[in-house]
């Protein structure tokens, strides 16, 4: 039987403010204040996910760094989570330890990605997650602290400290937190996790190493092809100005544009097919963005690149507030070098 004893060093400090100062001074945070990880609180979080302190949630395979349940729970407490969030964080970490996610490469790279987390299923409502107003912004405890907990684990357990293992040149605000729920109640579309193999009625998380979201707007049409074309144009722009390599793109579609797609009979599948065909650039197009020197390389000026390797690379997510003809394109860190991974949240742990 696994031991219940906690192994981490214990610090005795005057009060919560002192704890925060101590952790800040040691570089154990993302720069924001933390909640003191007391023994009692950490045990409560482990219990919420049915984990023993020594259980290994996953291993970062390149540097052979195991993530123990105890260290994860300490960081989840620090992030400001409630114990009920713990199973979601554990599922995200498990997904990130899958080889295709490329955790080391994507967290160490100068490209500066952050894990984009999408939560599906009944656990969203159980945790009160936000899928509507300002879904990529502030305001919801679960969205904010689940994403933050992942960042604190990366910092404290895997050493992804800026300038050390984390070599990001710029990074982006999603490195504080980058977590949303899909608006399943207000969408006729199949939820993302279900499309990617999680059984209907179960909860799941999808994680991908992502760059910052790029917001688009088209309030000047009801034609689904024209709306999809605006989205594809943003992806083409990303291919030219950032990275041309094909891989997973996330596409977040709020209600106003979603309703227009739905009224026209478009499902997620139709959006993916359109974008796959349209989000393409030729090598010559680089000349239009100041990258003319590479037009003659590779396959020459007429060489074609696609944003997606195939239509299924596009992760379509129904989320966002009700008003405004906006959508967000979230590009991959580096094409298919890191892929989105979906993980079922154990229903025993997650939906009690």
């Amino acid at each position, binding site marked *: 039987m696994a031991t219940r004893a*906690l192994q*981490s*060093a*214990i*610090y*005795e*400090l*005057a*009060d*919560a403010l*002192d*704890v925060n100062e101590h*952790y800040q001074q*040691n570089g*154990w945070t993302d720069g924001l204040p933390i909640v*003191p*990880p*007391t*023994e009692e609180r*950490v045990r409560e979080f482990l219990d919420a996910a049915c984990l023993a302190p020594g259980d290994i949630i996953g291993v970062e*395979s*390149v*540097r*052979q*760094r195991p993530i*123990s349940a*105890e*260290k994860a729970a*300490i*960081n989840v407490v*620090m992030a400001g989570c409630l114990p009920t969030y713990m199973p979601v964080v554990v599922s995200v970490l498990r997904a990130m330890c899958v080889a295709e996610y*490329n955790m*080391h*490469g*994507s967290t*160490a*790279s*100068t490209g500066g990605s952050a894990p984009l987390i999408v939560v599906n299923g009944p656990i969203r409502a159980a945790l009160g997650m936000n899928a509507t107003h300002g879904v990529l912004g502030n305001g919801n405890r679960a969205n904010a602290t689940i994403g933050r907990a992942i960042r*604190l684990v990366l910092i*404290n*357990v*895997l*050493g992804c400290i800026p300038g050390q*293992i984390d070599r990001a040149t710029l990074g982006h605000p999603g490195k504080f937190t980058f977590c949303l729920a899909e608006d399943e109640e207000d969408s006729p579309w199949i939820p993302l996790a279900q499309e990617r193999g999680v059984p209907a009625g179960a909860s799941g998380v999808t994680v991908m190493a992502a760059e910052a979201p790029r917001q688009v707007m088209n309030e000047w049409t009801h034609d689904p092809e024209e709306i999809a074309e605006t989205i594809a144009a943003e992806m083409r722009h990303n291919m030219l100005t950032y990275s041309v390599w094909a891989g997973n793109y996330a596409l977040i579609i709020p209600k106003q544009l979603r309703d227009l797609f739905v009224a026209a009979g478009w499902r997620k599948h139709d959006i993916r097919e359109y974008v796959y065909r349209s989000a393409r650039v030729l090598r010559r197009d680089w000349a239009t963005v100041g990258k003319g020197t590479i037009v003659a390389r590779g396959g020459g000026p007429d060489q074609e690149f696609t944003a997606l390797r195939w239509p299924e690379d596009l992760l379509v997510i129904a989320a966002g507030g009700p008003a405004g003809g906006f959508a967000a394109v979230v590009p991959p860190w*580096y094409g298919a*070098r*890191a892929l989105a991974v979906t993980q079922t949240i154990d229903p025993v742990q997650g939906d009690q």
Partner: protein
Amino acid sequence: MSVRVLDPTVDTSPAKAGATTKLTSLAGRTIGLLDNGKINVRPLLDHMERMLRSQYGVRDVVRLRKLDFSRPVPAPVLAAMQGCDAVISAVGD
């Protein structure tokens, strides 16, 4: 009343490994050159190979390559390194 809190970190310093004996000379040695797939590695390593052969009297140069710089060296490439006296990995940027 004080607060007792837990350390959130683990020791991420590399596992202790003994340093190998430094080569005193490259003459007569077999040197591996690992191309990690980054841009312009090949011309850099081509130049190094010429230098090693013409100026340092190496016995042989073994060109090694991994297809993805963000992932570990595949086992066959690692095995090929075993026959080298030293390996130069390029490039980090």
